């Protein structure tokens, strides 16, 4: 018998990467997956627009990539594990992107993490 999923309260400040996001973000995540390879990273850097066209990104996704805007990339279906490979091209750490998403300086973001241990 098929059981119905129990209703779940949304988690604040969090997009659950589910089927809906997986559909929306497929092209974007596929492009980011390709960044496992150095040749692909170099080819993206050489011509970002051509590279994005090759993977068929939507205008919303292209715009978010051009702006390096992580929240917009998540909104456009990006999965953080794949977006981290995109961020890696620019040497950005998870603290850099954490700061960007929370509107904090990197120092303030690191301090917030440190204080979570108190």
């Amino acid at each position, binding site marked *: 018998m098929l059981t119905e999923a129990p209703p779940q309260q949304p*988690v604040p400040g969090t997009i659950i990467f589910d089927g809906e996001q997986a559909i929306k973000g497929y092209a974007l995540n596929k492009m980011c997956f390709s960044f496992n390879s150095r040749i692909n990273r170099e080819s993206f850097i050489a011509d970002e627009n051509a590279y994005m066209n090759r993977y068929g990104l939507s205008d919303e996704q292209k715009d978010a990539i051009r702006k390096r805007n992580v929240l917009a990339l998540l909104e456009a279906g990006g999965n953080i594990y794949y977006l981290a490979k995109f961020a890696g091209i620019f040497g950005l750490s998870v603290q850099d992107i954490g700061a960007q*998403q929370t509107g904090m300086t990197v120092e303030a973001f690191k301090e917030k993490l*440190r204080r979570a241990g108190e």
Partner: protein
Amino acid sequence: MARIVGGITASHIPAIGNAIAKGLAGDPYWSPFFDGFPPVRAWLDRVKPDVAVVLYNDHGLNFFLDKMPTFAVGAAAQYSNADEGWGIPTVAPFAGDQRLSWHLIEGLVRDEFDICSCQEMLVDHAFTVPMQLFWPQGTAGLRTVPISFNTVQHPIPSPARCYRFGQALGRAIASYPQDLRVVLVATGGLSHQLDGTRAGFINKAFDEMCLEKIVDRPEELTTYSSIDLVREAGAQGAEFVMWLAMRGALTGTVRKLHSNYHIPISNTATGVLLLENTADV
């Protein structure tokens, strides 16, 4: 017969791989984390496992979202690491144990866990970083079976499902006819969140409760839904399901020999746990 000697756990942040490569273990930022490992290494030297069954989640090295198995069991003679795109040095391959892999696959499927078997499987930092932490001199003489859990794309397997997966895995290991000492390695966690306006979320009280209950009352942790785990432990804190699977595999009585908890490394609350299996099997 094969015997599970115990279970060990560690967080698996990529930055740890860089810290190891740069020799930063003694650095003030890193030492509260790295100091959590010598007691586990001493125990490993004493119990001398033949095989490590490693429960981890792939982050887009071996699997892409085109095909996303819930549970994937390695069945290769060797497992290689590769470029993940963010500059962690690639480490040497790990030896497999194909006969044991297929025995585990048989047992899991017989127990109604319809896993994906992988005769080729790249292992990412979630596998390699904990292996480097536990075996800093390398893993010569140790064979491995990697088991990857989907914690990347919802629906992810629930805490209860992962605990039961661990129980089935434990039964499969215990029924292997060869005399082997097997250690379970679970990686990931504890609380952390990389994405969204909630990035940087850490929940010390929840982690401490998990570290306590997983020893003697793990069933109480299986009542959380996957989304509960995201809420309480952060989006990537849901990796705790691998720890629960490890605990499920330890049949009978366990004894906590060591634990360490430190906030933060990178964006993560890190945990280390050593549970010895005291049951006679």
